[in-house]
């Protein structure tokens, strides 16, 4: 670790973030710095609070205490759309798309948001060439060019997952949160998804929840292990897999 990288302002900083649902503290003081441009995975056993952590960062609900900063600006407790406009986009573990719209339209909604024509009431959408071109471009990049006119609900599962990632990219955010992007995929589908994620997050900051260690190893620069709502360790994938505490808490169970 050079001094320059540690001095650099983190793209995303979580400081003593907690979240309680009633008497249960699901997130128990998480400190985490995500460096600009890195690919960072959060791993941990089921129920460790990974999805809750993502929901706190993306504004689904506010943290009970602590601060979340995006490029130095506090976003803790902001509504999801404000956080998105501040430059953070997320995907969902359970596919969360517009089922009755075409694949193209699913992507165009986000592209429109980036172009600032969110509530355009007096222009024909068919004439907005740049928006439509950019949408076609994203469609191409996520490998769904042939499916553009089909209803999103009619896509196969792995195609919907690709669309899910595509939608996350459209708003032009430079911090991307992906929640288990390869969950439920076959080996080949997973390999394709990894290649897709690698190419589309080029030049962006990626934070992802992932169960599949092979995906983490092939994709991520650093890994944080979340156990019972707090970070056990943060390090490179190699060091993490060699870490004794981590093996005991998490990896050991799968290795044995």
């Amino acid at each position, binding site marked *: 670790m050079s001094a320059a990288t540690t001095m650099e302002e983190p793209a995303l900083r979580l400081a003593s973030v907690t979240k309680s649902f009633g008497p249960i503290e699901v997130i128990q003081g998480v400190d985490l710095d995500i460096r600009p441009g890195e690919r960072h995975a959060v791993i941990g056993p089921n129920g460790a609070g990974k999805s809750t952590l993502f929901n706190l960062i993306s504004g689904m609900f506010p943290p009970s205490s602590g601060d979340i900063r995006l490029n130095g600006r506090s976003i803790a407790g902001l509504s999801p759309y404000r956080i998105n406009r501040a430059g953070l986009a997320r995907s969902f573990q359970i596919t969360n798309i517009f089922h009755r719209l075409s694949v193209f339209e699913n992507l165009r909604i986000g592209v429109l948001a980036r172009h600032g024509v969110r509530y355009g009431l007096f222009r024909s959408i*068919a004439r907005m060439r740049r928006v439509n071109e950019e949408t076609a471009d994203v469609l191409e990049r996520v490998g769904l060019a042939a499916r553009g006119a089909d209803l999103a609900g009619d896509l196969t599962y792995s195609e919907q997952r690709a669309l899910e990632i595509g939608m996350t990219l459209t708003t032009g955010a430079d911090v991307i949160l992906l929640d288990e992007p390869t969950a439920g995929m076959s080996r080949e589908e997973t390999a394709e998804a990894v290649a897709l994620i690698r190419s589309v997050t080029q030049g962006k900051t990626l934070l992802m929840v992932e169960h599949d260690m092979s995906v983490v190893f092939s994709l991520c620069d650093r890994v944080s292990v979340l156990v019972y709502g707090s970070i056990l360790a943060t390090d490179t994938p190699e060091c993490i897999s060699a870490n004794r505490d981590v093996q005991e808490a998490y990896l050991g169970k799968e290795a044995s």
Partner: protein
Amino acid sequence: MRNISILVAILALAIAVPPFLGIAWQNALVNVLIASLFALAFNLLIGQAGLLSFGHAAYFGIGAFAALHLMIAIEDGLAFPTPLVPLAGAAAGLLVGIVAGYFATMRSGVYFALVTLAIAELFHSLAPHLQGLFGGESGVSSMRMPWQGIIFGSLIEVYYLTLGWVLTCGLALWAYTRTPFGRLTLALRDNEQRVQFLGYNAHAAKVIVFAVSAMASGVAGALLAISNETANYSLFATDVSAQVVLQTFVGGSTVFFGPVFGAAAFTLFAFLVSDLTRSWVFYQGLIFVLVMLYAPTGIGGVIAYHARHRRQLDWSRLAGPYALALVGGLLVAAGVVYLTETVAVLFGEGYAVRMRDAGGSLPRYDLFGVSWDPAGILTWLLPLILIGAGGAVLVRARRSIAGFWNRMGRTEALAAATPEPAGGTA
């Protein structure tokens, strides 16, 4: 092109025919136009945004009262062109729509429906007490003032004014679906949560949709005020809110212009049947239930379905079953009407008196120009035969129609499943 030529043909009829009709028919057509615009405005919410409002009478009524107040001001000498009076309805609808929509759209689904219902009831209960705004129980009245040589004295002038406004607003609402915001509205219907995570303030967006819908409803209300030259608090009644829901669903909320069919059907039905029988509201309800059960996409949905498959439609094989279904439907309808009217006579006010006069025995009664014996076998056998025979015919017709569509569906699926190279060599 095909759609445009159909539209032009309908428009030509709508312009050319009414002058040759009687006053009653002209008035009925004005009401059809107003109901059509109201239903299109309402369907912006349920069809596009997926929001079911049970209180759209509020914005319809507000539009009517706003128009009347402007007309009174014109009467008192304000230099405002009478044809533009609906602008007052639009402005009032928009304003009230923003405020009411702000609260109603905080929730979705059932809660949204209940809040809209409550807001309309609020107007309905307050209006009779607000003498200045809503004219108390008797309401507000005014006169259409002449403008630029147009007297607005005859109904046909009102008809053309209404036609112009309904066309303009209808097309504007259609254009709305082609704008970025129109596409966002569909996305809201599908998945409000994701819309928020894509950088949109979903609540603000829903308020805008609601306000646009209320604005167009206000124009429809204003047109009614111009036509009737009066309005009272009954415009806010639940009945008005319910009518637009029924019309929209019978017309078909999934097709943009579908609600127009429902509005036309219900308005003309009321016009034609309400003088003939007091049971017409019952028949209207029956039609609604049947459409929901057997053609849930409504009249517009059925037409759109046929239009979509027009190339595959083999009318030589379809015309027979359809005609059979019509015959069966008419038989069942005859039986149901006969039963309904008989019950209406036997349990009506007049018959009880006659029964007392007859000393407890069942006197004969007249219906459909024939004298019937309430205790006669034929009296009760006839409707059963009609309904039974009609039902049997309907079942048969339905089977062959379903068979036709299934066969077509299979061919379609087969064509889709056949890989391209194989198709090429064949």
